[in-house]
């Protein structure tokens, strides 16, 4: 046991003396986890600049414009006289979409004739499209319903009955886990785990890459590999548990994303992910022949690792083979379970599969890491 502790201390020294590792594992973790949130800091897309072409210019059309402007979704910045003019503003990037209120808008509505409101939106940006569409749809429905109820009341139907006729039931939407629909809350839990995982495997890849480049053995005797590997892994796991404590326990209080403080299952899953990531890094380091290899190869994988777990883009839409492959990468295997525990408040039993799978990954990569390290030692001697 004393020896185990000595190896951990030794590894701590290695870590402190290695500028590159410090850069990735300390500055990298801090900077990425803070800065990745910056673009999303405003959380939701609000007040999208919008244009209106009003060919009607009546009380009802003006009321419609006013109501639309007062929603959170769009802000009317341009009132233009023609379609061409609106198109031009759209090309110039001044507006993200526009609506055309046809002539006789008011007259037709009062005559009981359906009117068509033309909506031109840039849907290349889904988020913007959604904001505009929701705003216009809501305003159209409300305006329509008010006119309709007014007509029913004029026909002598009591107002309450008229409302019930127009809206036979209430559709109550209850958004769970992220009530405000914030974008940061959506992507951050995934990105944080990917950042922790990537900094860990990049730095360890650098370390082993250096050994490969300079032909430095992992440890003196081949039979000590399992013991030394486990002890060194423990050092990095402890370091990252510290980060985890900050990210999972302190950050949610400072920032805004929801966390359930389901501490025990959370840290069990997280710890298992870290161990398997360390062993995984040792395995893939076989391909890293120089110190810089890991950085050059792994930086670009982060994007794929963000989408692989099937949280941002649903698993159901990803081919089964890709989903199966994702299970073999520690981060993408663990994110699902961690989010269930942390965001959805799942109990330990509800993530049983995730737990068992991560245990299995640990066994697989531990054995593979020993094998790979022995193979590297043989290659050094050549």
């Amino acid at each position, binding site marked *: 046991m004393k020896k185990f502790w000595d190896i951990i201390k030794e590894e701590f020294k290695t870590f402190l003396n290695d500028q590159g590792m410090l*850069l990735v594992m300390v500055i990298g973790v801090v900077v990425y986890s803070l800065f*990745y949130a*910056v*673009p*999303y800091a*405003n959380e939701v*897309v609000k007040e999208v600049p919008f244009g209106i072409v009003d060919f009607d210019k009546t009380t009802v059309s003006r009321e419609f414009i006013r109501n639309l402007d007062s929603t959170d979704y769009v802000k009317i910045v341009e009132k233009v006289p023609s379609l061409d003019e609106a198109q031009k503003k759209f090309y*110039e*990037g001044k507006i993200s979409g526009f609506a055309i209120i046809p002539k006789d808008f008011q007259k037709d*509505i009062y005559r*009981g004739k*359906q009117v*068509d409101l033309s*909506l*031109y*939106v840039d*849907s*290349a940006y*889904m*988020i*913007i*499209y*959604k904001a505009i569409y929701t705003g216009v749809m809501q305003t*159209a429905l409300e*305006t*329509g319903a008010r006119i*309709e109820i007014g007509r029913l009341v004029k026909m002598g139907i009591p107002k309450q*009955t008229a409302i*019930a*006729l127009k*809206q*036979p*039931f209430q*559709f*109550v939407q*209850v958004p*769970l*886990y992220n009530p405000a*629909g914030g974008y940061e809350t*959506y992507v951050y839990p995934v990105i944080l785990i990917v950042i922790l995982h990537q900094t860990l495997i990049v730095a360890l890849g650098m370390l082993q890459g250096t050994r490969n480049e300079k032909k430095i053995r992992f440890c003196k005797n081949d039979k000590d590999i399992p013991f030394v590997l486990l002890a060194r892994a423990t050092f990095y796991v402890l370091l990252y548990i510290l980060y985890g404590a900050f990210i999972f326990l302190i950050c949610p209080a400072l920032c805004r994303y929801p966390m359930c403080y389901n501490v025990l299952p959370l840290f069990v899953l997280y710890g298992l992910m870290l161990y398997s990531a360390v062993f995984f890094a040792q395995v893939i380091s076989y391909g890293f*022949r*120089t110190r*810089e290899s890991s*950085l*050059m*190869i792994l*930086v*670009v994988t*982060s*994007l794929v690792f963000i*989408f692989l777990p099937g949280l*941002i883009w649903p698993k*159901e839409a990803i081919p089964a083979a*890709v989903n199966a492959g994702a299970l073999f990468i520690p981060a993408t295997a663990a994110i699902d379970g961690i*989010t*269930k525990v942390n965001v*959805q*408040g*799942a109990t330990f039993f*509800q993530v049983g599969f995730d737990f068992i799978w991560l245990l299995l990954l640990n066994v697989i990569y531990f054995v593979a890491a020993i094998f790979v390290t022995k193979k590297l030692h043989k290659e050094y001697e050549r």
Partner: protein
Amino acid sequence: MAYFEVVKREIERIFARPLGWVVSLVIPLSMCLLMCFIFGKGSPVDLPIAVYNADHSELSRLFVRNLNTLQSCKVKYQVTSFKEGQDLLTEGKIYGFIAIPKDFQRDIYRLKQPELMYYYNNQRILIGGIITKDVSSMLQSMVVGLDAKIRNKKGMPMEAAIAQANPIAIVDHVNSNPYFNYLYFLALIAFGHILQINMVMISVYAIGTEFKYGTTKEWLQIADNSMWTAIWGKWTPYMAIFAVVFAILAVVYFGLYGVPFGGNAMLAVLATIAFMISCFAIGIIFMSINGNFRYCLSNSAFYVAMGFAFAGITFPTMSMPLFAKIYGALLPLSYWIQVMLDQTFRNFPIVYDLKHFVGMIVLAVLGFAALIRLKKLALDEKRWYQS
């Protein structure tokens, strides 16, 4: 000619160390294709939801049937209690859960406005948004249908009944990406992000290894002491590889996945060339910090790694704080992706895209200006073999 000598020398260097072609060919191509597989379906279908039907009336059964006709979702579980539905949500087996209350139909006819409860996992905004949009527009048309039917029964012609039930109809002129295909959109930005990382880093690598192995003087000598010749000769083989990668991706994206292209192809190609040159030129800026390969490589990795978020595509630039806007402006990706989106989906007139070229050209010029310092460093043997 000196230029061709440098090209020849660089090709030999690529063959001597596999990392060069792994990072310029294998990694970007495989990552981009993997992204295509992930988003291959374009838009999600049959996302699992659950229904708790406490009513069992004609109307509630019709409602469940209608739910199953929706493209985006599928009633995978008909649960018998409220708790069961909630557990399924927590376990991540379903994304949404609809509870139809007891006496739903009867209460509607009594004009009591019963409540239809809909719980959904909004942590996953994209999924929650897709299902919610589908379910609520289905409900809306059910309501309009019900209303129109009542009016029709009262003797109003059906057409007029529909018009009065829904006075303002929205005609959606979606002029870009009308299919709401996420592949179209996300694959393009993913390609850009992945290639930006690899192009910037390969440029740093190609220059940096000269310092690492102490061969900068030899490199310059072959180029007749011209930094300009030296850098272009060095880049040429890598640029050729990236051109092949871009071409393969274009075939996959426009050919295999059939993404429609409505704009000016020439402009898109020019933008891609400008993107490539500005990415490579940024490599010079990083290497001219101090000529220490590892240090400069780590810094360049920092700069490009977050490009995906800051280029303002997944989350629009206009909603970002100032810092993010500035960072975004320093990434060639932000400009390239605008031109590509404009030309691919929006059929923009060319004039409106010229400003994006200015951004890329400015970044490239800054990179070439750093050549002056790079030459100084290259002639300084103290910069060699640094770790």
